[in-house]
């Protein structure tokens, strides 16, 4: 059962990684990169590292996404055409 979960999560994560690279919209790319981190925390939990899972869920998908969005907001200001 667990190998099936890992393979499913892995396929979603690799697809999300390619999507984060090739999306035209930067906002969509940032959110997709956050999804990769969120699913990675499930992988850490399966591998027996709850400490790392907590850190990845709060930092990787929480604060990193917020910092990316802040930077995107500051960059976008001034040219609202894209």
């Amino acid at each position, binding site marked *: 059962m667990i190998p099936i979960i890992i393979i499913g999560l892995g396929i979603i994560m690799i697809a999300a990684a390619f999507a984060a690279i090739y999306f035209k919209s930067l906002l969509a790319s940032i959110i997709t990169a956050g999804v990769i981190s969120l699913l990675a925390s499930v992988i850490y939990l399966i*591998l027996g*590292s709850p400490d*790392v899972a907590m850190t990845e869920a709060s930092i990787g998908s929480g604060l990193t996404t917020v910092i990316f969005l802040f930077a995107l907001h500051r960059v976008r200001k001034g040219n609202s055409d894209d």
Partner: protein
Amino acid sequence: MISLYTLILGIALLLIGIYAMLTRKNLMKIVIGFSIADTGTHIIIVSLGYLRGKTAPVIDAAVSVSNAVREVVDPVPSALVLTAIVIGLAVTAVMLSFIVEMYKKNKSLSIDDYQELKW
């Protein structure tokens, strides 16, 4: 077999991240590629510390005190990755603040517009 699958997944994410850093033109996309490669590296390190059928290195009802050595996974990779994730956030923040400043000077996010060091 679990850790072999996650090892392959981590290596795949690392390669995708490096490919993105090498080919993308947008500065933000390059940082996103770095972030993906970072996640891949962490998954590789945690996979190398996994032991077959063992549980988390926290002594509670599931792990007996006397027999703990034979029931837990390796704690050292977990500790290393824990600090590496926090460092990754700090490095990302520094890179993004550089991008914001560069954008203020040149009004462009494309790496083709920063050719001062191109050979």
